[in-house]
């Protein structure tokens, strides 16, 4: 049995220090103007009763990940722990993942895709991803998804006393997200899609159209290959009949 691993971000604790972003850039040796973690801020209410809502725009590690399905090179794969890994050395930079991701996470720049690599080496050694271990506010956790869900439920129950709309995001979306978020308000307030989805044409294209196309090409090769000797003999015979 594979165990689902994942992240839990308590957005109510994030102080927006961006330490995770910098740590991630260093871990993955990214140029200073490239990042795998972006932030989105939203203000609700009016002064002086303002609430700030912060969330990270980073891979949500969808269980049913359309980016993995669409990636034509195998650069995007699911780990046994169900995290979505990216191997940039296989990437052609086609940007299909950026087009299909319902969260608009991957960025196709410099002929490759930029998205969270899930700190593959660390995680497979049993360590925490660097964004998690760097977080000074304890807003990020990493671990077995089932356990993260349990602790998220407790925290949400406490938050609901002050924020009645507080909730967990990612329980069911895209088959269940590996990046669970604790929100103080509705997902829409954070700019998160309530019902993210990948268009059904994706499955049709990959599972029906493509195999059918290749089969038809194969059939054409077979039919012409098998008839070639007979047909050219017939033709030569007709010519010599003159």
């Amino acid at each position: 049995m594979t165990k689902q691993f994942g992240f839990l971000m308590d957005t109510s604790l994030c102080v927006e220090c961006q330490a995770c972003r910098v740590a991630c850039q260093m871990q993955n040796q990214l140029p200073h103007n490239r990042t795998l973690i972006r932030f989105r801020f939203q203000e609700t209410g009016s002064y002086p009763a303002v609430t700030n809502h912060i969330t990270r725009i980073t891979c949500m590690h969808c269980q049913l990940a359309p980016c993995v399905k669409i990636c034509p090179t195998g650069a995007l794969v699911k780990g046994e722990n169900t995290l979505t890994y990216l191997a940039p050395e296989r990437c052609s930079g086609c940007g299909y993942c950026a087009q299909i991701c319902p969260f608009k996470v991957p960025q196709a720049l410099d002929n490759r895709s930029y998205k969270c690599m899930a700190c593959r080496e660390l995680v497979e050694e049993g360590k925490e991803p660097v964004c998690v271990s760097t977080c000074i506010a304890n807003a990020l956790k990493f671990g077995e998804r089932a356990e993260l869900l349990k602790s998220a439920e407790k925290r949400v129950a406490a938050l609901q006393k002050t924020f009645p709309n507080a909730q967990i995001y990612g329980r069911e979306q895209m088959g269940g997200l590996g990046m669970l978020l604790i929100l103080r308000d509705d997902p829409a307030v954070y700019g998160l899609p309530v019902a993210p989805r990948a268009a059904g044409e994706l499955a049709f294209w990959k599972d029906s159209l493509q195999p059918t196309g290749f089969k038809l090409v194969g059939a054409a090769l077979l039919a012409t290959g098998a008839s070639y000797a007979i047909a050219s003999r017939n033709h030569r015979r007709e010519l010599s009949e003159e």
Partner: protein
Amino acid sequence: MYKGERMVLRFSRGQRVAHWALAVSFFVLLFSGLTLMIPSLAPLAKGGVARMIHRVFAVVFMLVPVYYALADRKGLQALITESFRYDRDDLLWLLRMPRYFFGRVKGMPPQGRLNAGEKIHHALIILTFITISLTGLVLWFGKGNLSQNEFLGMVMLHDIAMYIMVILTIGHLYFTFVYGALQGMVTGYVNEKYAALEHAKWLASIKAEKTADGKLPQSKSA
């Protein structure tokens, strides 16, 4: 095969250049495109090389009709009109296509400069050419800003046009080699006997031109 026969001009220089430019760019586009599609070829596509090659040759590919129009406008017009106009002999020819597939020309209805199979081939190439170019351009300039549905629609149409073109090309190569027709597209000239056998109506029409002004303008001795 056809020794000591007179040769007649079937393809002008412009037509031959256009044909080979299209053929070369098609195969480069196909192989660079396939590396973007088949995981085992992915190492060839890494770092965007294949995508660059695909774009360069897409430009060559799309310029071929422009070149053709400049080099031989009448030829291009004839190609388009002939490809979409079918007479009774053409329909009969298509019904008897299985014979032709197996190398038998005798008993096939007489054909013009293009036989009905070639007409269908050209007609489909024209339609898929337009489809693959338009969808390719949308992907080129729009990728990143398309909705999921727009994007998937474009790649699927691009793929469908590609499959049709590949299958047409397999058939095209098959007939070329069964009927030894490669020479015609290389030199432009075909043997008069071949023309009589495969394109009787066309040969008759150029012979009619000959009687009008005294000599056969499009011929030379082999």
